[in-house]
């Protein structure tokens, strides 16, 4: 790792967060220099967002959060203009920023200073006026506009025999909406272009003015399958800025819930992947195991899905009396069945034929695109916040890193299998050494204008919340970031050269959130 430029070393100040975090205020030149330095240091772009602070600081600002080996660095560039704010794009170093920059423009009207920038709406599909920027401070987010839609020119591929297949936004199954435009020759995919944003429901604006003690309900619903990760990230940020330490028992129960969320999603995906390759037996078996786990959740946490289980200052309920015993029995049952099913999958020639070499994403490309989470680990990138930046209770749990180098559907499947066993180990360790004591402590109101971050490794990848407090216990601004932002573009590359009928399988192997990225 190269040394960071002096202005970064000297001027960064610590900010509250569940992992060591710092903030750096920069000017236009330093913004570019910082992005360059972050790239050279091998940092990962975690998120990019903007704010309208004209009411307080007379400026707009853009923020970029980078993950360095020892810290999370939030770089802030205040833009001192009254009209048409602009900032330099950082996509040269971090291609993952491209869509975030488009989203930022749609919500705030802060554009990149780039003559060739993609100006097609990402979150705005024409359903509200072009010059209506919902996240601007004085804009009334409750306004409704008559339905309208903008044409969206997809990049077209020309040549002999090339044709387009348009899929979505409504898909043929119980899945979220999004549009995929394939350019194909015969069955072979030459290009895939994703168009997302269909489930944008104004989460960022909805957070504004919400009471700090209620924000976790909304955070829990940014992406339902990662509800524990998001609500924990929110509560971590709030607890960091109010300087309270969550009781040990509560953090352990949160980790238990987070690992259950990982288990439930992985079990579901393993079944769905079998099914997408024509092996319905796999779906039956894994969906049964998932259902068993969800029922154990009802017993242990009071609900099948853990919406609102993580609350500011702790968790909503304690384990029932013989909760531990029942959960341990459940873990053994899952472990035995998953081992058995893993060998069935491994020995099934037809399945392996579909999984191997399908949707391959090489390590170098994955790194360049800024891949995160499960998909990154399946492409040989060692990246897991629970290991690299452990927050309580992971600081004493020592999770093991799971990595596969294949980068194909098979590798993403194997990462899931391995992570199931590792999660079960962590769950047992958590239950075995669980602390006594309270599960909830009161959270005071946060000081106005404090910025705090919460960063949690959800089952899909790092989930981030950047929370800024307002006066009288309200939220001034809360930015929720789902790892799907970084990983959706990976799919556009992984599909290249594959055949159209393999798309559902390859898409499922990533299993990204539409709602999480649309916000």
């Amino acid at each position: 790792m190269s040394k960071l430029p002096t202005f970064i070393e000297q001027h960064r100040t610590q900010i509250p967060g569940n992992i060591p975090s710092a903030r750096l205020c920069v000017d236009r030149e330093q913004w570019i220099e910082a992005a360059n330095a972050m790239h050279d240091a091998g940092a990962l772009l975690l998120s990019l967002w903007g704010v309208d602070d004209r009411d307080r600081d007379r400026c707009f600002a853009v923020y970029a959060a980078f993950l360095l080996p020892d810290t999370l660095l939030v770089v802030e560039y205040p833009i001192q203009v009254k009209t048409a704010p602009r900032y330099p794009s950082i996509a040269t170093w971090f291609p993952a920023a491209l869509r975030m920059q488009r989203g930022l423009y749609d919500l705030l009207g802060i554009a990149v200073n780039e003559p060739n920038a993609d100006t097609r709406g990402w979150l705005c599909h024409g359903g509200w006026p072009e010059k209506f920027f919902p996240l601007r401070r004085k804009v009334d987010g409750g306004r409704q506009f008559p339905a309208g839609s903008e044409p969206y020119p997809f990049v077209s591929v020309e040549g002999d025999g090339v044709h387009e297949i348009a899929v979505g936004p409504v898909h043929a199954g119980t899945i979220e909406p999004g549009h995929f435009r394939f350019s194909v020759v015969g069955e072979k995919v030459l290009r895939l272009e994703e168009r997302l944003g269909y489930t944008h429901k104004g989460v960022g604006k909805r957070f504004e003015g919400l009471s700090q003690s209620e924000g976790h309900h909304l955070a829990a619903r940014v992406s339902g399958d990662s509800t524990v990760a998001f609500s924990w990230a929110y509560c971590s940020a709030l607890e960091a800025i109010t300087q309270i330490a969550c009781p040990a028992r509560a953090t352990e129960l949160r980790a238990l819930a987070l690992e259950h969320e990982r288990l439930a999603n992985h079990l579901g995906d393993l079944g769905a992947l079998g099914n997408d390759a024509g092996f319905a037996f796999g779906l039956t078996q894994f969906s049964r195991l998932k259902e068993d786990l969800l029922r154990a959740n009802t017993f242990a946490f009071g609900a099948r899905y853990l919406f609102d289980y993580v609350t500011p200052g702790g968790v909503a309920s304690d384990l029932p009396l013989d909760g531990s015993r029942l959960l341990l029995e459940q873990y053994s049952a899952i472990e035995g069945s998953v081992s058995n099913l893993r060998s069935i999958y491994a020995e099934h020639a037809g399945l392996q034929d579909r999984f191997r070499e399908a949707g391959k994403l090489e390590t170098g490309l994955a790194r360049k695109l800024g891949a995160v989470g499960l998909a990154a680990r399946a492409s040989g990138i060692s990246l897991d916040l629970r290991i690299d930046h452990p927050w309580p209770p992971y600081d004493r749990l020592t999770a093991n890193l799971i990595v596969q180098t294949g980068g194909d559907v098979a590798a993403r499947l194997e990462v899931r299998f391995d992570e199931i066993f590792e999660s079960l180990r962590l769950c047992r360790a958590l239950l075995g050494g669980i602390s006594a004591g309270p599960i909830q402590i009161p959270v005071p109101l946060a000081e106005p204008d404090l910025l705090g971050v919460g960063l949690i490794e959800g089952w899909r990848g790092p989930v981030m919340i950047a929370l800024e407090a307002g006066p009288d216990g309200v939220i001034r601004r809360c930015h929720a970031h789902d790892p799907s932002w970084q990983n959706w573009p990976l799919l556009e590359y992984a599909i290249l050269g594959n055949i159209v009928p393999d798309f559902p399988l390859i898409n499922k192997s990533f299993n990204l959130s539409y709602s999480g990225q649309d916000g």
Partner: protein
Amino acid sequence: MFDVLSRMLRTGILTEPAPIPDDSSPVVEGLQTDLRRILGRALCIRHVDAGSCNGCELEIQALNNPYYNLEGMGIKFVASPRHADLLMVTGPVSVNMEEALKRTYDAVPEPKWVVALGDCGACGGIFGTSYASRGGVANIIPVNFTINGCPPTPTSILRGILETVRTPLGPGRTTSSADIQG
């Protein structure tokens, strides 16, 4: 192959009895008869996510696991609205999905039921109405039945479906989405 068969045998049949509808009418056994009487065949459901957080989707998927034996009761999820009798809609209707939802609704042949699923489908939930959200499904297309919950459990979804099909579809109960939105 031996492993697969042996696992199937060891797993056995997991299906549980179907839930009793809330009005405690005598039931579940009668469900297939009811479906045959009303539809003359199985009930086909098309699901549309109109902006959900994906929590409701997880529970709809769970409904297809072996414990609930959905197809055994004569209910199945289909891939096209043109094959459907019932449209199951989740999420607050996002502004960006409004048109797709209306088109899907119009593609379902008459007679049809619409079920709004989850607290968001019922009233917009925590997202409410805003520049980006139209709130509950009934603000956009006619809704026959609402199933609350965040997310509703598979059992309550199943119970809701049973109650929906037992509600007679009177003339004029379904209208084109265009009539509502003007």
